[in-house]
């Protein structure tokens, strides 16, 4: 095959990418490779190894060289123009990937296309998914535990940072004294968590950085009592209210002073708290029976339990079933010894 012909065939297959963006370069390599091109990729025009005339397709994107895309294209065009009189010469096509700030002079034999950004957008989406997964991963590792909401409120103490988690929604609060400071919520309403008797929570100590949120006057805050009131007062389903109380613990004992117990009841409550205080170890069912199973009474029982006004205990507490493991022989040795002291 004559030398000249060989060179022409070679040239028709070669493309040069002068692009710093590796992902874009790989995409173009893939596209051009699929069309039969041998693709060379450099991120600096000074790295181009072959004569520019031997490429039939040149793509100039953002690169590490010192000349602008337009100046580089002009330099290539000058070279092309000098050789264009030669027989059988096929002019290389030059494409500039144009940013908004790039000025590509009109009239030049250059194809200008908007700098592709779809790959960046796709990676932004992927990165967001990745971040969400990382957040979820972090959540799962951050001492979240599944709790019953009612029992959890009954157990919480002041001066804590608490995060409630339902699905991927979080409610972050700080309790200072008897006041709740709402730091963050993914829920439509703070009270939405009351719709989830079982959810995940994490408890942390308050850090100095949290105190700025607490002192910020724009941070929404509410008393613990009002929060529980608002959360419970709209629950009308008996089963939902019951699900906020511990299972198998239905004996009520008022442990707070009378004034605190009265103050915890929903406004307009018909529950006679003094009667309840005088009837220790009374079952929830007995209380509800007295009030004709009025849902408002059950609401108040749930509220009082969550606010630690009442204790709930098991019917079996007084029976002789103990959490003690001791061999009978050992026990009798102990009894005999004490009897003989």
């Amino acid at each position, binding site marked *: 095959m004559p030398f000249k012909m060989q060179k022409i065939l070679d040239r028709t297959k070669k493309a040069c990418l002068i692009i710093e963006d590796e992902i874009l370069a790989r995409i173009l390599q893939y596209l051009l490779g699929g069309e039969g091109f041998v693709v060379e990729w450099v991120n600096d025009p000074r790295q181009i190894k072959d004569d520019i005339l031997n490429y039939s397709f040149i793509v100039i994107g953002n690169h590490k060289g010192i000349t602008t895309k337009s100046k580089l294209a002009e330099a290539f065009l000058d070279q092309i123009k000098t050789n264009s009189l030669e027989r059988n010469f096929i002019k290389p096509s030059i494409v500039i990937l144009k940013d908004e700030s790039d000025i590509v002079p009109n009239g030049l034999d250059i194809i200008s296309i908007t700098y592709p950004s779809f790959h960046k957008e796709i990676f932004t989406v992927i990165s967001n998914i990745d971040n969400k997964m990382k957040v979820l991963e972090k959540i799962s590792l951050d001492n979240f535990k599944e709790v019953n909401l009612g029992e959890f409120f009954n157990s919480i103490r002041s001066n804590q940072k608490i995060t409630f988690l339902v699905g991927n929604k979080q409610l972050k609060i700080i309790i200072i004294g008897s006041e709740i400071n709402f730091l963050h919520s993914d829920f439509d309403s703070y009270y939405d968590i009351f719709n989830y008797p079982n959810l995940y929570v994490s408890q942390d100590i308050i850090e100095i950085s949290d105190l700025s949120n607490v002192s910020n006057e724009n941070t929404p805050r509410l008393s613990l009592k009002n929060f529980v009131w608002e959360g419970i007062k709209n629950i009308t389903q008996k089963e939902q209210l019951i699900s906020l109380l511990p299972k198998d613990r239905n004996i009520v*004992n008022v442990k707070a002073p009378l004034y605190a117990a009265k103050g915890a009841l929903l406004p307009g409550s018909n529950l006679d708290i003094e009667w309840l205080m005088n009837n220790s170890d009374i079952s929830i069912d007995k209380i509800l029976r007295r009030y004709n199973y009025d849902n408002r009474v059950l609401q108040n029982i749930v509220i009082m339990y969550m606010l630690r006004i009442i204790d709930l205990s098991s019917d079996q507490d007084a029976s002789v079933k103990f959490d003690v493991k001791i061999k009978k022989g050992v026990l009798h040795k*102990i*009894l005999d010894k004490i009897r003989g002291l």
Partner: protein
Amino acid sequence: MAIYKIIVTGSFNSGKTEFIKCISEIDPITTDKPVTEKSLKDIKNFTTVAIDFGTITIDKDIIIHIYATPGQERFKFIYDILEKNALALIVLGDITSKDSISNMYKYYREFMKIKRLPAVFALTKKDLPNRIEDKTLEQLLSNKPKAIPLIKISNKNKEEVKQAILLALEQLAEED
């Protein structure tokens, strides 16, 4: 060596330290400090700030540790520490003090939340003239579960202190 525990609890001035002194075979290790709360200072000058400790050796392999927990609310955390290998709970109440008696159930409940132990309610200082009459006692202890034995003792009388401990431990023996 197996170590078991008997826990003695009750409100301030209910006689826990004396109770241990009466039954322990060693001089009890006490951590009494001057009372700082003004309201309590009129009642007694010293109170247990950490824990009182005594022992009863059963044989070379078994020993009983008796712990009296501080009466003040702020020391409730000690319950968590004591519950391991605990056999019984003795709840003391000062028979001359309505507050002390009405608080017995509260102390019982607090401990039972951590571990269900055989318990006895023991009213101390039964020899004092200003003891509360039975009818009032009944009202003050109305929330005491019926299965929990109630006994009046002098916490300086070894036989009566033994009786209180036995009443608690014998409940374990009654279990199937």
